[in-house]
């Protein structure tokens, strides 16, 4: 049977439109795919394919400073995720639940860390810590990461709560539950997919951050992106590709996990970011 001609709004069934989209996706994926593919290439020159190997992963794994940087990243991201998720979820819930004076202004202020250029926040944190004579290290990195991750968690949790049926809470109260019981048994279970998605987002943001970490890290507190940066400034090596691939895979798992959780939550509003 012959397929029907595309209707006017079926853009994706038009040949030239498919070409435009294809170009976009090649543009978006070619560099990353090439980077990942060549981390398995058995050649230092990194341009012609010389067979499959894992040796650069082994090398990267045995590179002590690279591995230390990876551990530092995990420590920072772990602590930052826990703190920013708890504080951010509370804030998101409050923004959903309460109205208070100057709420719009408060809203704008609380979301500033999301929108201002990273470089401005980076140098501000540097100025702040040096003014207080706090030595730069894992502590300062973690504190800064919490500050920029927290609003993201609040946004995700608030979006999740937007679909919440408030009468459920009222019913619980009518049936004799106190505030805490109502929160624990009614509100929190509904909120949970948002909290988990927010936590995964905070984890990804922390693992990925370069600019703010760059300004708040000291000599002994190199994180993985900072280490990769210092390596790529000199040359393109397969070890860097291997380390990058590891980071890509981790964030890929985290982000797909976030999207799955948000999609399962149903009734989602807004974008899966």
């Amino acid at each position, binding site marked *: 049977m012959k397929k029907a001609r595309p209707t*006017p*709004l*079926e*853009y*994706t069934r038009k040949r030239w*439109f498919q070409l*435009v989209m294809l170009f*976009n*996706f090649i543009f*978006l*994926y*070619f*560099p*990353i795919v*090439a*980077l990942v593919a060549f981390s398995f290439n058995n050649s230092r020159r990194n341009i012609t394919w010389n067979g499959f190997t894992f040796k650069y992963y082994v090398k990267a794994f045995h590179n002590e400073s690279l591995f230390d940087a990876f551990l530092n990243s995990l420590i920072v991201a772990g602590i930052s995720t826990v703190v920013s998720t708890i*504080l951010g979820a*509370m*804030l998101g819930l*409050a923004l959903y*639940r*309460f*109205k*208070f004076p100057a709420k719009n202004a*408060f809203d704008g*202020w*609380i979301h*500033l*860390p999301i929108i201002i*250029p990273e*470089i*401005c926040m980076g*140098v*501000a*944190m540097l*100025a702040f810590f040096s*003014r207080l004579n706090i030595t730069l290290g894992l502590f300062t990195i973690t*504190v*800064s990461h*919490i*500050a920029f991750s*927290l*609003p993201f968690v*609040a946004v995700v949790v608030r979006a999740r709560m937007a679909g919440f049926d408030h009468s459920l809470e009222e019913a619980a109260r009518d049936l004799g539950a106190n505030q805490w019981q109502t929160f624990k048994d009614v509100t929190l279970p509904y909120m949970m997919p948002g909290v988990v998605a927010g936590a995964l987002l905070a984890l990804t943001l922390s*693992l*990925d951050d*370069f600019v703010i970490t760059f300004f708040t890290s000291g000599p002994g507190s190199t994180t993985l992106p900072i280490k*990769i*940066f210092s390596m*790529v*400034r000199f040359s393109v090596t397969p070890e860097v*590709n291997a380390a*990058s691939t590891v*980071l890509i895979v981790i964030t*890929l798992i985290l*982000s797909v996990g976030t*999207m799955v959780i948000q999609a399962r939550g149903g009734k989602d509003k*807004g*974008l899966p*970011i």
Partner: protein
Amino acid sequence: MENWRDNKLVAAILIVPASAWILIFFTLPLVIVWVFSFGERGPQGQTFLAFTLDNYARALELIHLGILWKSIWTAAITTLICFILGFPLALGVAFAPARYKNLLLLLVILPFWTNLLIRTYAWIAVLRTRGFLNFGLEWVHGKLDALFSLVKLPDVMGTFQPLALLYNHSAVIIGLVYVALPFLVLPIYATLEKLDRSLMEASLDLGAGQWRTMAFVTIPLAFPGILSGLMLVFILSLGTYLTPVLLGGTDSMMIGNLIAQEFGPARDWPFGSALSFLLLYITFIILWIRAVVARRSKGVSY
């Protein structure tokens, strides 16, 4: 929504910790930089508090204004290219058949989650002298050369000279477009998705062509989302630090790099602070424009 007065304790428990964190570890640092921007640099690079506008005056000197101007037009070109590439992509995803839509959306979002540094670094391998692009060009050159010698043409092609694609400002723009593209596609997709399609169909039924419908119906209806995307990309590119460092050449310095330099090797924090606030003010103006436009065009929320 509950009034906070009816439940003061719970409201305070929920709001105060996060607000305190943002206040101390975000707002206060910005205030310090703001105060520094009126300060003076000591002979050893110390920062003395003072009240002088010299740092702002210096920021507006020709050499620094040039860097600011370069940042602005770089961000503008990046935004334009992102729109040309990204609008059809957003349209395609929004109007794709239901069964492909989520997959396409995922394909747009995935690079957005990938590390910024790694995405930028990936372009070094593509653009450098012995990179994938030059390698591909060399291959094409070789094939053409063989073809020409086959038909006994004189050696018109010459030997292959790799193009200098990396470490210049074009590379910076490519890198910025690459990093920012999803930020443009997602808000536009979100508005197109919610758009009332019968309006577009009506326009087509009433005899307007695809392009006219696009220009006079679809784009105006999706305008808040488009503006949102454009401004996100502009802000992101304007304040970039990493891309010019990794992909740029000697002439690619942008405002972010100048700020970093003043806080780093140059050790002139007051001047760096003034530049930082100049960048922030531009960002705020853009956000303000967006808020005004959003308020005027209620109805389509995004």
